[in-house]
């Protein structure tokens, strides 16, 4: 059970939150080509190392925010409200 630092609530057990995966940038749905859109939907960097990811503070403040987490060690740093 890792600890995730919510920028509003402080450190929380990860079971109180929902991981939303690595942060990707959503193209404009009105203009995106299908292949751009699917790249956004499906393709992931999936690095072993530092990654910026989104979390939802489900049992706490109900805010979405981002943190950086090292997927090789599960260390975390810098959390930011979105």
């Amino acid at each position: 059970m890792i600890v995730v630092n919510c920028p509003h609530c402080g450190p929380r057990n990860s079971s109180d939150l929902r991981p939303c995966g690595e942060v990707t940038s959503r193209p404009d749905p009105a203009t995106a080509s299908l292949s751009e859109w699917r790249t956004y939907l499906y393709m992931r960097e999936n690095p072993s190392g530092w990654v910026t990811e989104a979390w939802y503070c489900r049992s706490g403040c109900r805010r979405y925010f981002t943190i950086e987490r090292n997927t090789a060690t599960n260390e975390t740093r810098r959390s930011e409200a979105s």
Partner: protein
Amino acid sequence: MARHGYTYSAGKLIKHGLTRGDWPRMWRRPEARSSYDVVIVGGGLHGLATAYYLAADHGMTNIAVLDKGYLGGGGSGRNTAIVRSNYLTPEGVAFYDRSLALYNSMTQELNLNVMFSRRGHLTLAHTDSALRTMHWRAEVNKLQGIDSSVIDPQEVKKEAPSLDISADTRYPILGALFHPPGGIVRHDAVVWGYARAADHLGVHMLQETEVLDILCEGGEGPDGKGTGGRVTGVRTNRGDISAPAVVNCTAGWASLISNMAGVPLPITTHPLQAAVTEPCKVFLPTVVVSGSLHVYVSQTDRGELVFGASVDPVGTYRVNGTLEFTEELAGHVLELMPGISKMRLMRQWSGLCDMTPDYSPVMGTTQVDGYFVDVGWGTYGFKAGPVAGETMAETIATGRDADLIAPFTINRFTEGDLVGEKGAAAVGH
């Protein structure tokens, strides 16, 4: 020609027992060559099976299988070893059925007892909708000639007496999908069987050899990688190796390797955990799976219960496991079998799973010439190892995607249709 080395038999056991003579090596520790016709990255079941079928079926023997650790040290050495073919989609069924057929003859083909225990596979339904999905699977299976049917709680009890089938539990057992040909295989033996046979056919297995980069030319990305490029070799911790064909069989690490070739993948890496109890006298005859409770359990011939679950929600490359996994697992197992609360958990571990959005693999050729993928095996790649090896070998030898893997190529994520196994996503193994 024999497809394996030194022939094992009961007679040989007696001979070696009497003479106390040494057994021959199952595989060598060869010196690496500077170039191979095919370099396979990943010495798990998939990499080794691919090498074996390339050599045995296509006569290609100048092959190296590279692994950063020991043979089978990835998912192949950590899985709950459940095999079955009762999938939901016709594509899935055809594919896994071929794999089961290969498992059936494997002991004899490889002359190594992989201890395929066809003990029957039960997928429990606790809700009406789960029962409906079971029925859906059973009907698709029957149409494909697969032995699979929905059975009622009394019949479930007959197959696995320790299950609690009373109706007033939180997760009552309303029925199950019963698949008699399913079962478990001694996972390590499969890895060793392919390794031994591949070694015998001339394949080099280079352990403790880590791929650090894939060398490419002509592609649109940096360093000649990416779409339109061509593979020229790999860089490893022990030096460069050139090869016109490089195969990514690295499962949980698949994205890292593929990113080296400039081919992004629709994959996220999540740990899947497993655990064993201390041994007990055998009481559980079948494989029992509950999708809604995320439990997979079977009892080995040594008496331990082997448990699996579903992947961890947090993606990571770290495999040290979590306490929650064991807590939830135990809670759910005891919902199913309240009488075993005094059994003790002895070890937990985890492995990395390369999860795709549609619970189906990514296989075959890619936008980079000579770079092949056999990845996205998620939580179900053990049962598919033999057929994946066979079809990948065909694909590499011919340069064309084999028929059986056509639904699984990477193009489906940009052009076509995802595979429908997600419909039965609740049953991962």
